[in-house]
């Protein structure tokens, strides 16, 4: 099948793999890149909105896999797609099939939005936007192009998706809300409540959290006083806001210094009463310092997820006293992450790897043996095979508050709990794979212990 290929690279990131400072010695091969299918980042956002009925333009294998993870991590939402097999592709029925699926979606009760998610196969075949309806019944049809071959990580697909939604649905005209702030980023549900509570004390009248469950939030976000990306990969999305003259707050309310600086910037950008802002920021700083004083961390931790939020987590852990020697992430190197990288490297971080592969993470395991790994599932399983406490970053950290002092308390207590049960990891490794034990020579297997008991 060699149909004309229509690429839409102008909408896509395409930077080559970039790596921070490398250790001396041989560079590991990069065989197994670590990211969830990039498209999932978009699907998660699009499936969770109330009144949104996604149509996926793709092949059946892709549909199966992405629907699987969407039904696991996204929403209990039925997903439609045109059948795009060899016959349909040869006959050039991508547009026709997609339109048919849009018509079915439009009949769902309460349908207000039909995101058409164009994936590898449909992008390669070509799905021209002008061939799709803009609106069917009450529903806006929004094309979101997130082929995995062009967008290399799922955090970046979230950015592309939010930008597409905002560009199409945002309503910048009309009365502005100068004292409102858009919080941009998928976060634990308690986080925006905590942030909102604090900001209101500083004089913020309203916060809007995106992506969220409400389509109308996307529309009115365009009239907010400022936008604060809570994660460092909302690059295109930030540009959309800048085009509306909505200023972008740098940094994120993470840890002691990060939260302090962030609160002050919000105050400046929204022109809040400096006295109130200082009061709240100082108070919050004291609280965060007290939390760290009460439960300081020690030990070497790897932060090696693929969510694009790894440097922020690492900063918090370092502030709490941990040594984060190695950080890796799925997103590409970007000016937005640079401040975090510099901050971390001046505080003992040896490497920050972008667009990482499993092999790089494993090499780091040898180079800087950690006490605890927050990683991807393959990497966490490899660490556990060595008896090192390890967890899937996505599931464990995304399910806890993270921002401001409250989030810091929750995350630190979780890390403490894990470190306190670290001997379980030794025990399990000794039980199942005593032969490959890399522990100290005097450590005995579970069977030996039983025999001597």
């Amino acid at each position, binding site marked *: 099948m060699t149909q004309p290929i229509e690429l839409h690279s102008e909408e896509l990131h395409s930077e080559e793999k970039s790596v921070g400072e490398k250790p001396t010695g041989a560079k590991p091969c990069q065989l197994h890149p670590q990211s969830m299918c990039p498209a999932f980042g978009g699907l998660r956002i699009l499936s969770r909105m109330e009144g949104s009925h996604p149509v996926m333009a793709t092949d059946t294998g892709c549909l199966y*896999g992405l629907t699987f993870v969407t039904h696991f991590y996204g929403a209990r939402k*039925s997903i439609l797609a045109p059948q795009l097999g060899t016959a349909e592709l040869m006959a050039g029925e991508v547009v026709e099939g997609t339109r048919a699926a849009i018509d079915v979606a439009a009949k769902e009760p309460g349908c207000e939005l039909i995101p058409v998610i164009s994936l590898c196969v449909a992008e390669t075949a070509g799905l021209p936007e002008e061939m799709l309806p803009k609106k069917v019944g009450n529903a806006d049809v929004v094309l979101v192009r997130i082929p995995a071959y062009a967008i290399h990580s799922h955090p970046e697909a979230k950015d592309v998706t939010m930008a597409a939604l905002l560009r199409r649905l945002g309503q910048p005209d009309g009365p502005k809300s100068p004292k409102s702030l858009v919080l941009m980023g998928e976060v634990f549900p308690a986080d925006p409540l905590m942030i909102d509570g604090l900001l209101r004390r500083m004089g913020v009248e309203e916060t809007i959290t995106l992506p969220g469950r409400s389509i109308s939030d996307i529309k009115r976000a365009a009239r907010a006083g400022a936008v604060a990306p809570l994660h460092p990969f909302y690059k295109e999305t930030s540009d959309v806001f800048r085009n509306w003259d909505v200023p972008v707050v740098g940094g994120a309310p993470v840890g002691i210094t990060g939260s302090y600086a962030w609160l002050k910037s919000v105050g400046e950008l929204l022109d809040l009463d400096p006295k109130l802002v200082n009061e709240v920021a100082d108070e919050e700083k004291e609280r965060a310092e007290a939390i760290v004083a009460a439960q300081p961390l020690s030990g070497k931790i790897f932060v090696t997820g693929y969510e694009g939020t790894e440097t922020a987590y690492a900063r918090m852990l370092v502030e709490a006293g941990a040594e984060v020697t190695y950080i890796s992430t799925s997103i590409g190197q970007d000016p937005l992450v640079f401040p975090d990288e510099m901050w971390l490297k001046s505080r003992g971080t040896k490497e920050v790897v972008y667009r990482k592969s499993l092999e790089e993470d494993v090499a780091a395991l040898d180079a800087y043996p950690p006490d605890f790994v927050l990683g991807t*599932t393959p990497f966490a399983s490899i660490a556990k095979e060595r008896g090192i406490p390890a967890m899937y970053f996505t599931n464990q950290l995304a399910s806890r508050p993270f921002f401001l002092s409250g989030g810091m308390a929750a995350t630190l207590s979780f890390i403490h709990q894990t470190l306190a049960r670290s001997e379980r990891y030794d025990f399990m490794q000794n039980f199942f794979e005593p032969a490959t034990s890399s522990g100290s020579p005097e450590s005995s297997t579970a069977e030996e212990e039983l025999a001597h008991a």
Partner: protein
Amino acid sequence: MPKVLRDMPDTSGYWAASWTICPMPDTHVICDAPIGCFNLVSTAVSDYTDAIPHIENMTPSVMREKEVGGTGTGPAVQRTYNDLEAEGLLEGKHLIVMSTAESEMIGSDLSDLVTQLKPGTTFYFSDSLSSDEWAGRDTCLQWLWENYSSDAANSMEIEPGLVNIIGPTYGCFNAPADLHEIKRLIEGAGGRINMVFPYEANLSDIDQLAKAQINVIMYKEFGQTLAKTLAELKGQPSLQAPMGMMETTAFIQQLGALLGTQDQAAAFVAHEKKTTLQPVWDLWRGPQGDWFGTTTVGIVACKTYTDGLKAFFGDELGMPIALAASRPVKVGEMDNEAIRQQLHQQAPTFLFGSINEKIYLSEAGAKHTAFIPASFPGPIVRRALGTPFMGYSGATYLVQEIVNLLYETLFNFLPVDAAYAQTRGGASMGMMGPPSGTPSKGASGGPPPGTPGGPPLDADSQSAAEDQQQPSQQPGNLPWQPEATVALDAALEKIPFLPRISASRELQMKAETLAQNRGLKKVTADLMAEVLAIQGA
């Protein structure tokens, strides 16, 4: 009219081939794929279907714009190969380069390239744009035999008593428990296990398939082509793995006849009835069996399971089969759209299915239907050996499952003192109160308890409810408009039989409480519609 798919029930040829080849530890697959196709198959989904942290013997070529837009994937595969070699990951491995939907889309044919890689490297065209996972497994097994068996297989002597099992692969729901049971049945009938291909095999040993006397094929969906090839070569007869009591008995007898161990097989069947299967007989004779005739079952699963569950629950236990559809969907069968509509309309007491059906039940608010996982997709761990659906153990396990879920349903009807809900602070009075013993309205008022002609099944729980009835919480015996009664009846019709009595009481009470709160003199159709909307009934 182009075909519209709803919630894919089965995946593609590429997944099938990965799941078929990768269980064999002496293989390594380079999938010619973008990062997503690699991650979903090797990690994101296999974590939750097969409960393995990741498929280790699979590496992607990582197609990017460059490959899609011009260079093709040859250089990327070559680079991947070089790195794998450099890391020593291909030592002792059969290397297979595999196409994916996207590589097929750009017409990437690597059959020439593989001849320049390590000797014996092959290219597998997975036909991912056309083939579904079931046909894909069948094709892949046959391809493995054609490409990896040797002439030695032809001259190999058949060893009497040896039996192959063809299937499972990764991604086969509940496979470890079913496989365990099929092995047990084969051994009970007098056979010995030769190879379990591909699940417990090495690809290097593929010739050994020719040594067995009989092939047992685990699934109706795949493996038949390979079995036919072996039959043509060595005359091996094949049997299909059984489900339900009758099929299992016939399977053991046929195995005995083929192996010349008829007496052992007959003795095994007799012994099984007194041991493994005895719980089915006990539950049949007990009060539990009395429920079967009025307890409806729906099934959406692979054909093997759909046929097997239908035969066991429907034909053998006499349970009404409300719907049964196999995947991949055949002409004349209900597709997901039709299943969804039916579940929205009326859900059965038990639904065996995948996460798709579970979502349709959620949409329908069908909280009285018990969902039992019986198929992928959907995150579900089925690695324990004690959860078979196949064979005699499967019959017992399935009956045990549904009886326990019936108990669960009954438990949920039993009243709890409302005071506890109030101490939790959540429930509002009236709308969340305990079931009330309000007398039925009869023909002129509310509906009769239970379905037409049937006495209440939960007589005990009903009387328990009446015992705990508190006058102060009675809704007040308001009269009902006939239209309101019709609306209530229609809503109750949609609820499975067993929970209906309790639901009837609950809805009546809610309607009357709401009417009282609003100072109405009777329950009107509008009010009933409002109550049903709140309920999601």
